């Protein structure tokens, strides 16, 4: 495992005076898939939002490539970080084509390069071609999630933050969706921070696991260490 | 000077009552009406007609004004049951504009643009209230009575249900609250008190016409509530004092050519409204943000 690409220490954040993150230390290494698990309300989504700059931290530092910074979403995106938010990360009123245009716009990609990127994503997730012109609202949950992930991959991020991509999807469907992402990750050495409730599927592709409770990381280790079901239940 | 101050104090008490009544809708019920002057107007016209044709007795005039406004408040309750938020604001705006035209056109009742003139000096149970001190006492009594009624009601189960409704309509419904009834009652209560204030206003001015019940007046009353702070007892009173006394105080501004006085006063008044909202969005008496 090589050095850290994204990390934080003593990170605290919350909404309107309510503390959600209470001193989080976390480090994501280059080329690593780190899976974050924990109860509802443990602070997993908030951690991802804070790392991406959607939420202003109350205390602590965030590091990118070893440099402390105050993240802003657009700057983080330019720095090669992709974020797939919780829920359906698509605009229901926009066509898939338009959602991809938006992503190209965010990544300042134009012309031939833009077309090549789109082709690459469609090659990875070929089903997208079938509903390219349809409005996102008319797509199934799995298709929407595929668009959301494909959109994030368009910028060829070196770090991908994914917030519960499995929600509302059948386990089989979810695995079909994760498999290409895993392939890409291995091919390109991308780092992934994955928040997931579907522990079985997530652990299968993770290098490392962190468990959160009440705004803190209470366990870090290998997935195998948590394979023992009893241990997992205890931690939850 | 005393007479002028008394006149202002009477107006302040009446508008305080009016603003407090709007607070029932806006602050407690989350019903953002910009048509409150309409119900103030219903009360004022009804009160003026009673004073002109029956007796200028304060009790009769204000109760009559309140009843008429309360019954007609159904016109506001109806859209309140159908839509919320911005849609309701626009609905009440529509009501205000239509009502303004009706006030102008219903000349036999309202006197049209010419208004109702010659409203006799007020009485109370046969005693004359022609003295400004006596009428001020009546206005203050009405204000205190209105505030006490609202305080009791808003602290009771009605008020708590209403605030639950304001904070989340679906949650209130889930808890088995009768949303339609609650909203209708809140509208009726607010508008009835506005009607009482209207009756007093008719007696105070001894003249009513449509220009006192236009959109500008509705917005002014709304601004009183918002500037003071919604959902509090003191807020509307603070807002009333500020917005009623500000134009009065501005007429004392020195150094402005007389032909520009009006425009400069208006500009300062508008600026004060905007700046207060930018720097004190919760209102002067409003609670700190984030802690409801």
């Amino acid at each position, binding site marked *: 495992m090589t050095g850290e690409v994204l990390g934080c220490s003593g990170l605290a954040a919350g909404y309107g005076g309510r503390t959600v993150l209470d001193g989080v230390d976390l480090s994501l290494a280059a080329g690593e898939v780190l899976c974050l698990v924990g109860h509802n309300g443990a602070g997993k989504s908030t951690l991802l939002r804070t790392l991406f700059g959607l939420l202003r931290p109350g205390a602590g530092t965030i590091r990118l490539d070893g440099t402390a910074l105050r993240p802003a979403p657009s700057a983080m995106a330019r720095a090669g970080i992709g974020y797939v938010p919780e829920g359906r990360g698509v605009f229901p009123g926009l066509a898939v084509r338009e959602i991809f245009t938006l992503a190209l716009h965010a990544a300042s990609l134009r012309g031939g390069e833009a077309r090549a990127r789109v082709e690459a994503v469609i090659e990875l997730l070929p089903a997208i071609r079938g509903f390219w012109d349809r409005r996102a609202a008319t797509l199934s949950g799995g298709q929407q999630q595929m668009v959301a992930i494909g959109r994030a991959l368009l910028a060829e991020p070196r770090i991908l933050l994914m917030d519960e991509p499995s929600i509302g999807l059948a386990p089989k469907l979810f695995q079909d969706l994760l498999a290409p992402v895993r392939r890409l990750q291995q091919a390109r050495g991308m780092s992934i921070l994955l928040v997931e409730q579907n522990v079985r599927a997530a652990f299968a592709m993770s290098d490392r696991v962190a468990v959160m409770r009440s705004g803190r990381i209470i366990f870090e280790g290998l997935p195998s260490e948590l394979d023992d079901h009893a241990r997992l239940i205890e931690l939850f | 000077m005393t007479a002028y101050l008394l006149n202002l104090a009477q107006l302040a008490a009446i508008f305080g009552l009016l603003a407090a009544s709007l607070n029932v809708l806006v602050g407690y019920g989350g019903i953002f009406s910009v048509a409150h002057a309409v119900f103030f107007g219903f009360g004022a016209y009804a009160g003026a007609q009673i004073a002109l044709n029956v007796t200028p007795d304060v009790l009769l005039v204000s109760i009559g004004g309140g009843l008429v406004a309360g019954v007609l408040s159904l016109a506001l309750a109806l859209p309140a049951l159908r839509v919320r938020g911005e849609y309701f604001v626009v609905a009440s705006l529509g009501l205000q504009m239509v009502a303004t035209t009706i006030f102008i056109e219903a000349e036999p009742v309202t006197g*049209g*643009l*010419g208004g109702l003139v010659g409203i006799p000096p007020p009485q109370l149970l046969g005693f004359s209230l022609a003295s400004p001190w006596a009428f001020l006492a009546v206005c203050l009594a009405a204000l205190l009575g209105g505030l006490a009624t609202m305080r009791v009601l808003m602290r009771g189960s009605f008020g708590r249900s209403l605030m639950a409704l304001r904070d989340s309509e679906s949650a209130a419904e889930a808890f088995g609250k009768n949303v339609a009834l609650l909203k209708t009652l809140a509208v009726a209560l607010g508008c009835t008190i506005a009607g009482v204030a209207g009756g007093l206003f008719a007696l105070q001015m001894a*003249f009513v016409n449509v*220009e006192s019940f236009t959109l500008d007046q509705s917005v002014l009353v709304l601004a009183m509530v918002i500037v003071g702070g919604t959902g509090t007892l003191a807020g509307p009173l603070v807002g009333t004092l500020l917005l009623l006394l500000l134009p009065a105080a501005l007429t004392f501004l020195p150094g402005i050519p*007389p032909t520009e006085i*009006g425009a400069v006063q*208006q500009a300062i008044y508008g600026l004060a409204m905007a700046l207060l909202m930018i720097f004190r969005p919760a209102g002067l008496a409003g609670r700190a943000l984030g802690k409801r």
Partner: protein
Amino acid sequence: MIERRMLLRAGLGAAAGGLALAHARAEAEPYVLGTLFPMAGPNAEYGTIFTEGAQLALTHLTADKLLSRPLVLKAEDSQGTPQGGAVGMSKLVNVDHALYVLIGFTGVSKAAAPIGTRAKVVMVNGGGVGPDLAGLSPYYWNVIPLASAEVSRIAPFLVAKGWKRVALIYMDDPFGNGLRKSMQSDLPKAGGEIAGLFAITPAEQQFSALAAKVRDARPDVVYFASYGAQQAQIIKQLRDNGIDQQLVTYSGALIPSVRSLPQAEGLIFTVQTAPWSATDPVTKRFLADWQATHKDLPSVYHQNYYNAVRLFGLLAHGLEQQGKPVDGDSLRAELLRVRRFALVGGEGTFDDLGDLSVPIDIETLKGGQPVKLD
């Protein structure tokens, strides 16, 4: 508090029409004149005009040292509304202790008159022309002919011109309705008829539909009566929407926004006789000083409010000579005793109600200037 407040008063040695601010002197308590005009909003144009006339008279009275005490002018904004009128009047009466208030506008007058009457403050109207302003209160005087007089003057003229079918556009308020009633009685008497009645309200801005309806009534001539900015708007939109008939109106047309409007060319209107050719010294001085600063002819509103202030000077001077106090009752008694005064436009005579009778001309606009027709 009153002594410390800044008051407006005529500036000694200041340019004609100019005002300076000064502390009121405690030793010579001034006569306070109030103005209750719309100073903001759609009718503020009138407030500006009314004030200018009053200011010139104040300058003249001060320069003449006609009175033993200084004169101050205190302005209140009536907003053109009854409420503004009632509140402003109350302030003028109770705070400023004005003796004599210049007022305009029918609605404002009707709301303010009871307050002024109770406090026995004289109110003088030189701008409002609502027919029911006559006899509003013993303390309410008019130095302007009311609309009923203007209608009686124009009706026979229209018929004589062969314009028998008159479409009447009127403001649906006491002024407009009074005017409509006058027209409904005077026009048939003269041998004409009403081709259509079209009521409007102050807030209206769109008159293209009105134009279509007026055209549909096929009138020979269109008479309209509104106020302020709306007057110009009506003219422009009627003309733009294909109303080619002669347009006729009342004295309210004499404001810059109408006069500067190209579509208003040829507009016919009634107005109290402009006395600019009169040779009496009062008129000549008013005219000369006005033109020296404004490079333009004054309007009758300037004249009326000049006269209103001048009237106060003459009355108060008379009372001072007699050693009587100057208050509402004595001013009224003095007015009814003297009756005839040298005013701009020649000698004016007041009737028992306190109204000045003034001859009325029929004029037309040529190149933005009023030209006498009849």
